[in-house]
């Protein structure tokens, strides 16, 4: 059984890794700073909204790209939303794929769009797993009676 100190160490290291690998950026820190004793679940709540919203958008995107006559404006609108929400939580790699995705929409490049959809699904899935791991670590620390270290 890991001690609180060990768990806190793990969390700090894991967080640093996520930042170094570009999964998360400064915006995620901003969210953490908005969390306090009266809003202890703020980050989890925002990220959960992000998960729900993203899954909806990814479904819509898949459907839109399957249509006989592809509506690029609709696709662009969905990607714009996904870009916005990923930016709002600091999911940097997802945001970056969205930028390229919008370019392909503008060019009405179906293959480019399909490739980007696969990429963005992949990046989304990665960041989701990593955030869930991060939250689980936080829960472990709290359960062991410790407090979550503040971001640097």
């Amino acid at each position, binding site marked *: 059984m890991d001690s609180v100190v060990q768990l806190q160490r793990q969390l700090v290291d894991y967080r640093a890794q996520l930042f170094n690998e570009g999964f998360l950026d400064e915006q995620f820190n901003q969210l953490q700073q*908005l969390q306090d004793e009266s809003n202890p679940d703020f980050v989890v709540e925002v990220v959960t*909204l992000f998960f729900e*919203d993203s899954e909806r958008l990814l479904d819509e995107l898949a459907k839109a790209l399957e249509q006989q006559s592809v509506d690029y404006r609709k696709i662009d609108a969905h990607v714009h939303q996904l870009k*916005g929400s990923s930016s709002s939580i600091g999911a940097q790699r997802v945001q970056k794929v969205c930028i390229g995705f919008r370019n392909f929409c503008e060019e009405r490049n179906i293959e480019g769009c399909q490739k980007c959809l696969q990429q963005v699904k992949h990046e989304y899935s990665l960041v989701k797993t990593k955030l869930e791991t991060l939250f689980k670590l936080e829960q472990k620390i709290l359960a062991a009676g410790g407090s979550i270290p503040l971001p640097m």
Partner: protein
Amino acid sequence: MASSSSSLPSMEFDIDEKPHVLAVDDSSIDRKVIERLLTNSTCRVTTAENGKRALEYLGLADGQHPNHGDLKVNMIITDYSMPGMTGYELLKRIKESPNMKEIPVVVVSSENIPTRINQCMEGGAQEFLLKPLQLSDAKKLRCHIKKLNN
């Protein structure tokens, strides 16, 4: 009645009277973030998911009878890109209203487009901020909040 004792042009409110901000954004994530940012700066926040709902709340929707008796809004912050009505269109509607035009309106956008920014500023926006909003932006917003006289 509160008197300002500091040298900064601070807005002082009665202890029970937090400034009330109407935040308009079609993204549930952004509504949540903005709400927290503002409540963190001791504001009371009402959110609306689009321009139409915002106008309804303000009593400015088509066919509505303006009913401003109890409504106190010290600032409106709106996203630019929204379905149905853009933040700019919402800004114009507010500025056209004799009762609401004095309320400071801040427009936010994820896109840094100079013509868009100019358009909003010329349309009467107090400020134009880029998303994603950060803690430092909350301080700027606080300065724009207008103290309404009862």
